[in-house]
Structure formats: structure tokens, C-alpha cells
């Protein structure tokens, strides 16, 4: 946010911030009461819940943490009271900093309360558990794809081009990645797949850039039509090529590359240091894009082009070239994201990205067009995507179809709650004509 010298503007900004803080505080209070009443008092007094920490598919874990078994009602009431307390604290004190951090912490507590409630069992003999490590690993897969997508969005939109086609780049990358990984089918196959996925995503980005920059077409229309095209093209190719030649779609999963020693750390090890190469690539890309956009001359040019292309052109920056470069690079990143999705899900299937590209766009907005913010937002969305598919196996009195709506509803809530208050790059989505 730009702080202006004008007193009036300053007051407006402060009052908007205070209003937003109040809204977040109210949300937290509601979550706290809900936890207290439903997850706490709603559970019978002798119900137990257990949480396990063992890494998935690991028979020779060098360490072991026992299961944590708790009384559902009392644990959740304590969690609910903490959430309620934080909410009241924020409402009364209206702290200037750390509101979102508190909100993040509260969301995590709420999630634990939800899970404790979902796995509760009444009898003392058989205690069902939820595996925290499995939850984090599962969420990291969706999160990773969303990070790739939102980084792609950041690259394009910082240069002033709206990339709605991320979903299409996911589809293209996933398809090409699956074919390449299956055809090569050796130790290096996912390196080739990532490379080809990047090329495919970059080409889709080039198509978008070509139509949007050279012919000044509407970026949103072109993006939406590109997604439709890629969706139907992948469906066509799936029936025409992959079905008769199943060898093109073996569905290999990218092998984990454990980092020596570090991967043995309890919980953190399997989540952060025993992932496929795509995970490490994602972390490197986040750092790289942050550095490039905010610490280099190139990044300064990009942001100038995204904020005020005419001014940028005046000082000798080639606006159209910068936009071409960024849209193609952004497309390549999203293409790799598609390969990463395929590498964590297996066989290419039509429509299996199910709107993740659009959720990634929302994550980018939520992250305020910053790579670091996009990561935080992607984690929230990633966990909700994973939970919506995992909660079904537990004791939840909600239809699995209703659960499936949650990631999308959360996306809508986030976009509705934030978009008026975050500021996109000023020239985002506006065609630039060099006169």
C-alpha cells in the first residue's frame, strides 16, 4: 500500500484497515464458538481421538513417535477457547501487525479441532487415528501445483498481462509430461518431462502473448478460450492417442529424492526433505522469482511495465518485449506445474486438474502479487483441497459432494473478502499500444 502525505487519504486507509481487522476478528470469534460448541460439546464426553506421526509407507523409520490420544471433548473445548480468545483480543485491541499471522494460527487450530472431531471414536478399545505426516505430505502435493500456478500468474501480471490460461498450461504440461515420462521411462524421465512441460506451457503462453500483445485481443477472452481449447484437445488426444497406446500414459510417479540426514527429522523430514524433484524446484523458483522481480534491474523493468507502461517506454524499456518474455516464462512455470501435478497424481486423465489453475490465480491475488504471499495462500488452498478429499474417510456427517465444494467456496470467500483491498499492478490486463 502506498502511504500518501495527504491526511484524508491516510485516514481512509486506516479506517479501511481497522474495518478489515474487525471482520477478521469476527470470523475468528465465530470459528472459536463453532469449535467450542460443535467440535467440543458436540462430542460425547468419553470420545477419544488419536493422531499419529509415522511417515507413510515407511517400514524402517529410524525414529518413532507414539500416537497422541486425547479426549475429544476437552481438547476441542480448549482449542475453541484459544481461538475465541485470540478473536476477542484482536477485536478489542486491534493490533496493527500480526493479524494475518494470528489468523493463520487460528486456522491451524481450527483444522486440528475439525480433525480430532472427525476421527473421534466412542469406545476405548478401537481408536481411529489421523496421520499428521500423511496430511502434510498430501497437502503439499496440491500446494506445490498451486505455487507453480500462482508464480506463473505473478510473472505475467507483474508485467501487466492477465494469464487466465494457467489451467490450460496445467493441462498441456500434464499431458505432455505424462507422454514424455512414459516414453522415456527411465531414471531421468521426469527431467525430460519437466523440460517438455515447460516448453509446452511456454508455447501456450506465447500464443496468449501473441494474440494479446500483437493483436491487442482481450486477455481474459483469449485466456478462457485457450483453456477450453486445451481441455478439448487433451480429451481428443486422450481418446485418439493415449487410449489405443496405453504405453504413452503409464502413470509413473516421480520418485522421492531424500536429502541425506535431513529427511530423518520427525514430521518435517518426510514433508520437506523427502519429496520429488519438483518440490525442490518449486522452492528454488519461489526464491528465484522473488529475487528477480524485486532485487534486479530486470525486475524493476517488469514492474514498471506492469504499473505504467507509457512511463516505462519513455525511459527506453521495450514494453512489448518485456511482456512477451514474462508471459512465456510464466507459461513455462505453469507448464512445469502441470507436470508436477501429473507426477504426483499418476496417469493423465481428462479434466483432472479440476480448476486448480483458477484457484492458483486466486492464490496469487490473495498473496498480493508477491511470490511469498502466493506460497502462504497456496498452502491454505492446498490444505483445503486435500482435506476435502480426505475427510470423506472419517466420521463426518456431511456428504462427500458437499465437502468437495469447500476449496471452491473458500476461494470465492477469499476473493470476495480481499480483492477490493488489494491492489493489482496498475496496468494489469490493459492492452498496450506503442504509439
Amino acid at each position, binding site marked *: 500500500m502506498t502511504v500518501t502525505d495527504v491526511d484524508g487519504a491516510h485516514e481512509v486507509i486506516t479506517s479501511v484497515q481497522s474495518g478489515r481487522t474487525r471482520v477478521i476478528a469476527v470470523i475468528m470469534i465465530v470459528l472459536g464458538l463453532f469449535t467450542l460448541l460443535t467440535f467440543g460439546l458436540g462430542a460425547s464426553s468419553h470420545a477419544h481421538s488419536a493422531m499419529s506421526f509415522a511417515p507413510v509407507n515407511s517400514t524402517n523409520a529410524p525414529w518413532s513417535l507414539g500416537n497422541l490420544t486425547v479426549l475429544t471433548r476437552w481438547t476441542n473445548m480448549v482449542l475453541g477457547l484459544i481461538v475465541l480468545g485470540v478473536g476477542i483480543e484482536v477485536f478489542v485491541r486491534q493490533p496493527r501487525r500480526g493479524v494475518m499471522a494470528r489468523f493463520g494460527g487460528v486456522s491451524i487450530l481450527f483444522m486440528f479441532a475439525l480433525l480430532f472431531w472427525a476421527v473421534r471414536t466412542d469406545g476405548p478399545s478401537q481408536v481411529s487415528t489421523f496421520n499428521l505426516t500423511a496430511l502434510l505430505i498430501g497437502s503439499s502435493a496440491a500446494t506445490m501445483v498451486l505455487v507453480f500456478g500462482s508464480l506463473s500468474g505473478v510473472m505475467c501480471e507483474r508485467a501487466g498481462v*492477465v494469464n*487466465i490460461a494457467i489451467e490450460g498450461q496445467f493441462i498441456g504440461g500434464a499431458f505432455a509430461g505424462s507422454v514424455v515420462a512414459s516414453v522415456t521411462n527411465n531414471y531421468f524421465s521426469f527431467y525430460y518431462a519437466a523440460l517438455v512441460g515447460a516448453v509446452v506451457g511456454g508455447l501456450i503462453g506465447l500464443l496468449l502473448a501473441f*494474440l494479446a500483445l500483437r*493483436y491487442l*485481443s*482481450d*486477455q*481474459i*477472452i*483469449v485466456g*478462457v*478460450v*485457450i483453456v*477450453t*481449447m486445451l*481441455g*478439448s*484437445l487433451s*480429451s*481428443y*488426444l486422450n*481418446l*485418439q*492417442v493415449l487410449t*489405443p497406446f496405453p504405453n504413452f500414459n503409464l502413470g509413473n510417479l516421480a520418485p522421492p529424492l531424500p536429502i541425506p540426514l535431513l529427511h530423518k527429522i520427525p514430521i518435517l523430514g518426510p514433508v520437506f526433505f523427502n519429496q520429488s524433484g519438483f518440490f525442490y524446484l518449486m522452492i528454488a523458483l519461489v526464491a528465484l522469482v522473488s529475487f528477480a522481480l524485486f532485487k534486479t534491474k530486470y525486475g524493476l523493468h517488469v514492474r514498471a511495465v506492469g504499473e505504467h507502461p507509457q512511463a516505462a517506454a519513455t525511459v527506453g524499456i521495450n514494453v512489448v518485449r518485456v511482456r512477451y518474455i514474462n508471459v512465456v516464462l510464466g507459461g513455462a512455470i505453469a507448464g512445469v506445474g502441470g507436470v508436477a501435478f501429473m507426477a504426483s497424481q499418476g496417469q493423465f486423465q*481428462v*479434466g483432472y486438474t*479440476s*480448476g486448480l489453475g*483458477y*484457484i492458483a*490465480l*486466486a492464490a496469487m*491475488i490473495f498473496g498480493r502479487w508477491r511470490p511469498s504471499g502466493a506460497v502462504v495462500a497456496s498452502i491454505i488452498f492446498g490444505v483445503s483441497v486435500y482435506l476435502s478429499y480426505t475427510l470423506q474417510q472419517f466420521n463426518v456427517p456431511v*456428504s462427500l*459432494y*458437499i465437502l*468437495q*465444494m469447500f476449496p*471452491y*467456496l473458500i*476461494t*470465492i470467500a477469499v*476473493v*470476495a*473478502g480481499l*480483492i*477490493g483491498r488489494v*491492489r*493489482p*499492478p496498475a*496496468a*494489469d*490486463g*490493459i*492492452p498496450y499500444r506503442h504509439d
Partner: protein
Amino acid sequence: MTDTANAPVAPKVRRTYSEWMNSKSAIVVTALALVLGLAVGAIIITTTTPAVIDAWRGMFHSWGAPGHALKVNFDNVGTAYRSMFNGSIIDPSGFWHSLTTGKGWTNTLTPVSETLTYAIPLVIASIGVGIAFQTGIFNIGANGQAVLGGILGVAVGSMLHMPTVIHLPLTLLAGIVGGMLCGAVPGLLKAYTGAHEVIVTIMFNYVMYALLAFALFSTALQQPGQQNDVSRTMDTSAQLSPLFGANSGLRVNYGIFVSIAVVIFAWWFLDRSSLGFDFRVTGANPSAARASGVNAKVVVVLVFLVSGGLAGLAGIVQAASTTPQLSGNFLIGSAGIGFTAITVALLGRNRPMGIVWASLLFAALGVGGRAMQGTTGIPLDLATVIQSAIVLFVATPVLVKEIFRLRNTQTNALQLATKGWSS
């Protein structure tokens, strides 16, 4: 290109050709976009059909091989497009047979009937999307709105029992209400929180798919005695029955009158009503609209109500005219008329009559794609690829003119208010 500045009289043939081409610019560009779209489809068929690839692979084996490969290539593409044409418009040999013997008219007319059947809900949904586009609103959620319209409409059509005069209008009304409900939320969110409608409507599409699955497995809507995701069957009094009777074999139905009514309504609404005028002004110049006293927030909500209502109507018309019940694949994949509607509205330049022609074209492509899949095994999704390619070309008329070396004059390009996330 010749240097026109130094040559005051350009070559006459070229000039008349250009003049002729430019005289009906929009139509010419659309026609050329169709040609280019079919060319894209031909390239895709060529590069993905095993028989064609095998023929080209052997092109160095003998002197005649390249010619043979070319022939195989043209045969495959030709058969595909011919079956598309025969299956969606008319089969010339069947037509000749009917004409000479007076028999088999049902078979001869089936392709046209199928295309019309496909086009009926498509026109309605596309007009809804087009009205939103004209107001500068991207309603990408027409499919979700059609799904909710279908759910509510089928619920009314199957659970209530009344005479046709009341039941059918009530069913259609339920569809409209469903679409309006689903459209109202993005509209309200956009108006009062600034949430961009593209993301919200797309998310609602997925929410509505989940809701459809939920509804189809619920005791209220699921066909009694069924384990699958199939809804109750609508009463015949709530269905749009075939125009020529149920035994005619032709599926074209009374929904055609609903479509015609919607087209007339859209023409009247956009060109004659004051609300429609407000819509168009808002789309053309939001600040001018604000200055002249148009309440932008109210307009946004109303646009979504109109657009969503029409999409919902399309959903229930689709259900009531073809399969009188819903199943899990209702409006999914290539059957998602809400997505096709976006491309149709763009192709028809958001005008009612333009949308009618565009719907007929895309309906023919869709129905033809089905026929092509039946005859040649080439998946019908190719039709959707061709449709999106056509729209990409129509959205960039300058590109089309450059490809065909036409003089670049002012075209009726898609004039939409381009904007970022915040407006």
C-alpha cells in the same frame, strides 16, 4: 503488398477483391475464421491419426509413396469432414434417394433436426452470456447456472403433477429461478465486494457440479429404486415434446418456440427497453453511465440475474427436450453448453441474430462431431477444438486479414471493455 503511396491506382483486380472482401467485413472474417478453424482441425487429424502417420512414415519406401501418403491424408480428413457435414446438415445421397423415391425422409431430415435440437438451448444460453458481455461482464459461469436451472426444473417437473398448461411454464420458471440464484451470488459479490466475476463464476461451476452429484444421490431427487446418479423422470406434462410427434423419429421439439421467444425478448430488451440501454451504456462506457445516473452496482446484479436466468432456462430446456431426467454427466465435457455459449456469444458478436447463426454453426459442428466419431472413430472433442480455434481467430480479425492478405481496415472487432481485476 504494393506501395500505395507511390502508385495512385492500385492494380484493379486486387482492389476490387479487397473492396469486396471488406464490404462485409464481419461476415467475411467469420467465414475465413471458419476456414482457418477447419484447417487447424485438419492438421490435428493429420498428426494424430495412426493410418495417416503410417502412410507418411513410408513415404521414402517407393516412388509412389509420397503421393499415396498425401491421398491417405486427404482421404482421412475428407471422410471426417464429410461425415461431419452429412451428420449435421444433410446427406446428399440420402437426400437424392428421398427425392427420387419419396421414401426415407425421416433419415434425410434427422441431421437438421439434431442440429436444431442442439441449437435450441445453446441459443438461449448464448444470449444470456452475450447480454452480460455487452454490459462488460464476463459470465463464465453459464454452465453452472444451467446446471442449477436443470436441477430445480427437473425437481418441479418430476415431483409436481399438473396439467401441461401450468406444469410446463412452472418447470421452465423453476429453471430460470435456479439460474438466477446461481447468477445472483457472483453479481452481488462483484457489486458489493469487488470480487472479479471470472474467478467467482468459474468456482461456481465446480460447486454446481458437486451440487448436481449431491442432488442426484439425494432421496429427494434420485430415481426411486436406483443406485446410480440418475434423477426422477419428468412428467410428460413438463416435457418439451417433439414437434412432429413422439413417433416421428425427429427430436426437434417445442423448445424452438422458447428459443425464438428469447431471441425476440433479447432484441427488444437490448434495443428498445430502457434497462437494456443502461446495460449497453455501462458496457460501452462505465464512467459515462455513472455520470448519467446509472447505478453501477444495481446494473451488475441485474445483468447477472438476466444472464443467469437465461442460462438456467437453457439448462431446463436442455433437460426437458432431450432426456427428461438428469444424470451425472449432465452438461459435462463437450456437452457443456454453458461453455460453448461463451464462444457462441463471441462469434455472434453478442447480437441476438448473430448468436442465432453462430449457435446453428456450432450446433452443426457439435452434432457433426458426434457423427464423425460414429463413422470414423475420430473423437468428437475435435469439434470443440475447432470451435475454440474459430473464436480465437474471430477475436483477432487483424490476424485473419493478415493471413489472407486482406487490406487492414476498421473491422467490427470484438469490442469489450478490457480491464484488470479491480474494476
